[in-house]
């Protein structure tokens, strides 16, 4: 009986925390209000403006990867409303992916050790 009560309490906690995360997804466009770039994360073009040149290796390596949803934006969505929608969709996709992968990896790791189930 006490064990069941404990499980219920944990299930409720997990549910509530997922609601918090869902709320944060919808609030995430607030993060777009910060228009600047984090220190050390400038684009090649920004660096050209700042330094007058682009470091050679940086320019070469900087092109190594083209992310599908670079800067949390969906390529076909434009304008302010588009940016806000992009950011929310990116948040949902990102949250979904990282939690799914963590969940699956957790399953794989614990499945090898039944004795951990207690």
């Amino acid at each position, binding site marked *: 009986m006490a064990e069941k009560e404990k499980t219920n309490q944990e299930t409720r906690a997990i549910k509530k925390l997922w609601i918090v995360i869902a709320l944060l997804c919808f609030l995430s466009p607030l993060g777009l209000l910060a228009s600047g770039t984090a220190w050390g994360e400038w684009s090649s073009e920004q660096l050209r403006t700042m330094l007058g040149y682009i470091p050679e290796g940086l320019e070469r390596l900087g092109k190594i990867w083209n992310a599908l949803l670079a800067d949390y934006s969906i390529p076909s969505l434009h304008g302010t409303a588009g940016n806000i929608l992009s950011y929310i969709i990116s948040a949902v996709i990102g949250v979904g992916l990282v939690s799914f992968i963590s969940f699956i990896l957790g399953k794989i790791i614990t499945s090898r*050790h039944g004795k951990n189930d207690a």
Partner: protein
Amino acid sequence: MHIPDGYLGPATYGTFYGIMGFIWFWSGKMLNRVLKTKQIPWLALGAAFSFILMMFNIPIPGGSTGHAVGATLAAIILGPWAAVMVISITLIIQALLFGDGGITAIAANSFNMAFIMPFSGYYIYKILSAGAPIGSKRQIIAAGISGYISLNLAALFCAIELGLQPIIALTPDGTPLYCPYPLSVSIPVMVFGHIAIFGFVEAAVTSLMVAYIAKLDPDLLKIHHG
């Protein structure tokens, strides 16, 4: 704090792939021993929370931005090895899908945010909260302080990695090949932003969530209590 592609030379990012390769391997070995099935839903929550938290960019004077990470919170709830795993997964998805942090820099970024941060935060929390009752003021303050210090440590490591580049990687005529700013610039700038602002955000988030979890499910905090 997400180092993009091109800011670290191959010698640096290669070294970090070596170091993190070992840490990832070791965390897998440790988790094989300590991870429990009832922790699995919390792994998913920890990764999700860290991902969404990092989307909240905060502006600081001077035009720069930053954010909290949530790695110490993850370590307090899940233990440091599980935090290594979930924060690394988060950083890998950010790099691959969203271009936030470079793919060459995944290991360096993981070293800072998914290793230095959760481990330092976890042990600072353990020491400061030792013997404090669950949900007590001291426990919640301990969570905040550990969040603050650990985020600053991660930022310091990031600044050192970037600031080393113009010392170790130059063209024959002496122009920087990768990150152009030396340690004398990178350390003060990175440390200032995190000491003055982002560290307090990390502290507030860590404290708030530990207080909330202490209310929702106090037993969860017993597992990794000091």
